C-alpha cells in the first residue's frame, strides 16, 4: 500500500502540521512519499521520495496549477491514497483532484479501523465510518487527530515535477494578516468564552461579568464574533487564537472541531451548556447542564460572597 502525502507550505515555510501526514501513513502501514511545492531548503525532513515543484514558479496558492502538479506525481507514483490535511489548502484541492481522477474522497478523518475511516458528522455529535469503493482514494485528515511524535529527520530525494504550460486562471495577489488586537488572549490565565448560546448581544455582558469575577478575559466563538457581539481578537479556534489558560469556561458553546482546536490544551475546562450531549462535554473536566442565563447569575452571587 502506498500513500502520497501532500505537504503544506505557506509564506516561505513548510508547515509543521505536514508531519501529521507521516503519523497517519504510519498508522495505515503505508509506504510513504511526499509531494511538496515550496523552496528546496524547506523540503520535509524525510528519508524517501519527495515529488517537488518550485513555489517560485507555481505559487503558494494556485489550485489550478497545484492540482495538475499533483496529478503528475500521482501518475509517476501510482499511490493507493493521496493524503492531505483537512485545512484551507487540503479541502480546497482534494475534491478537485478526486473529481478529476473520478475516485473516492473521504474528508476529515479522525480514526482508522479495520472497516474504514472514521469521520465526524452533525457538528461532531456523530461519527461515520466510510470506505472508498475505488482502488485509489483522496483523503483529508483532521489536524491534530494524528500527532507526530519525535523529531522529523532524514534527507529527502527530490523528484522534480513540472508543467509544460503554467498558464493559470487564478492570480494570487497576496496575504492579509488577521486584524489588530483588542486583547492578547494568549497571556490570560483565565478565559471565559461566550458562544451563540448567549442568544443576543446584551447577554454577552453576563459572560463578561463572570470573566471579571474570575479575574480573566472574555473569549468568544466565531458566530459571536461574526455577529459583531465581540471583537475578532477574542475569537478562540482554528481561525482565531489558540489558547492554553489555567482555566477555560465555555458558556453556551457547542464544541465544534474548530473551536476545540483552539482551547483543548487548557489546564482545566468548565462547560456550561443546556445540552448534555453537546460535544464540548468531550473535552470538559466539568460540564454543567443548565441554562446559562439562570445559572451564571446564581454562580456570580456565590462567587462575590
Amino acid at each position, binding site marked *: 500500500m502506498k500513500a502520497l502525502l501532500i505537504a503544506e507550505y505557506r509564506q516561505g515555510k513548510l508547515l509543521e502540521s505536514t508531519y501529521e501526514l507521516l503519523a497517519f501513513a504510519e498508522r495505515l502501514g503505508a509506504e510513504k512519499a511526499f509531494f511538496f511545492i515550496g523552496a528546496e531548503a524547506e523540503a520535509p525532513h524525510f528519508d524517501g521520495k519527495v515529488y517537488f515543484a518550485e513555489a517560485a514558479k507555481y505559487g503558494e496558492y494556485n489550485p489550478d496549477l497545484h492540482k495538475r502538479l499533483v496529478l503528475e506525481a500521482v501518475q509517476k507514483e501510482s499511490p493507493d491514497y493521496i493524503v492531505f490535511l483537512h485545512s484551507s489548502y487540503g479541502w480546497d484541492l482534494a475534491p478537485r483532484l*478526486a473529481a478529476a481522477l473520478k475516485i473516492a*474522497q473521504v474528508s476529515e478523518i479522525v480514526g482508522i479501523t479495520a472497516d474504514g475511516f472514521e469521520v465526524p458528522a452533525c*457538528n461532531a455529535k456523530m461519527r461515520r465510518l*466510510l470506505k472508498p469503493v475505488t482502488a485509489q482514494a483522496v483523503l483529508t485528515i483532521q489536524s491534530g487527530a494524528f500527532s507526530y511524535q519525535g523529531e522529523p529527520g532524514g534527507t529527502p530525494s527530490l523528484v522534480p515535477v513540472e508543467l509544460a504550460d503554467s498558464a493559470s486562471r487564478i492570480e494570487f495577489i497576496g496575504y492579509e494578516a488577521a486584524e489588530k488586537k483588542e486583547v492578547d488572549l494568549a497571556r490570560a490565565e483565565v478565559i471565559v468564552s461566550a458562544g451563540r448560546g448567549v442568544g443576543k448581544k446584551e447577554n454577552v455582558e453576563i459572560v463578561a461579568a463572570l470573566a471579571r469575577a474570575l479575574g480573566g478575559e472574555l473569549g468568544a466563538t466565531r458566530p459571536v464574533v461574526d455577529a459583531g457581539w465581540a471583537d475578532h481578537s477574542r475569537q478562540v479556534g482554528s481561525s482565531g487564537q489558540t489558547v492554553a489558560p489555567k482555566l477555560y469556561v465555555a458558556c453556551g458553546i457547542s464544541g465544534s472541531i474548530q473551536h476545540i482546536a483552539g482551547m483543548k490544551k487548557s489546564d482545566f475546562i*468548565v462547560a456550561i451548556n443546556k445540552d448534555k450531549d453537546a460535544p464540548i462535554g468531550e473535552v470538559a473536566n466539568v*460540564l454543567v447542564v443548565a441554562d446559562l442565563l439562570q445559572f451564571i447569575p446564581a454562580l456570580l452571587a456565590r462567587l462575590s460572597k
Partner: protein
Amino acid sequence: MKILVCIKQVPDMESRFRVNSAGTWYEEQDLAFRLNEYDEYAIEQAVRVKEGLGGAADITVLSIGPDRAVEAIKKGLAMGGDRGVHIKADQPHQMDAWQIASLIAAFARDKNFDLIFTGLQSQDRGSGQVGGMVAELLGFACVTTVVGFELNGAVAAIRREMEGGLRGVVRLALPLVVTCQLGLNTPRYPTLPNIMKAKQKELLTFQAADFPVGDSLVQTEKMYPPEKKGRGLVLEGDVNELADKLAAILKEKAPALR
C-alpha cells in the same frame, strides 16, 4: 449574469441524534430541518451581486432532497432568488458527494451559469466536497472558504480564509464556483412581503433519476455517536445546587479567587 446557488436542508444541530434502522444515517423523524448555515451566506452573496448589478442578474436556487427541501428553496426565494429548482431525492444521504455534485453539474452543464455559489460544507455531512467537485465537473475555476467577494465586470476579487485568521487575496475571471464561509456577509431575514412574493416564483421540479449519474465512490459502513472517552464530571439538577458545586470548584481553580 446567470447565478446558481446550491443549498441543502440539514437538521438543527442542537437536536438529539439517533441512528436509523439501517445504522448508516440519523433517524430523520422528530428532527426540525433548516437551511444549512453556510448556504445562507451563499444565497445572500448571490443577491448582493444581483443588487450590485442593478438587478441585471438571474438567480436559480437549487436543492437536492426530499419534499421538505422545498422549504429551504422557498427561503432562498424569499431572500431574493428568482427561481427554485428542486431535484427530488427521498434518501439523498445515500448519495455521496460525488453523486450530488454530478447531479448539480448535469443540471447546470448547458445553462451557461457565470457564477455558482455553494456553502463551504454541509453541517450534517460536513465533507466540504460538493462545491469543488461541481467546479471540476464543469471545468470552472473555484475558490473555497471565501470571506470577501467583489465583482468588477467579469473579474472577481476574492478573499479566502486560512488558518489563524490569515487571508489570501486572489483575482480571477468568471465563470467561477465560490464556496462560502461563515461571516462572508450578513444574511438577511426574509421579510413578510418577500415571503409572500416567493410563493409566486417559479419552482421547477425534477427527479434525481432525470439526471443519470454513476455509482457512489464512497460507501457508508455505519453511523454512531462518538465514544465518550475521558469525559469529566457532569453536573445536573437544581440551578442553586449546581451553582454551589461549581463555585466550590472554581474557588480552587481560579487564581484570582484563592
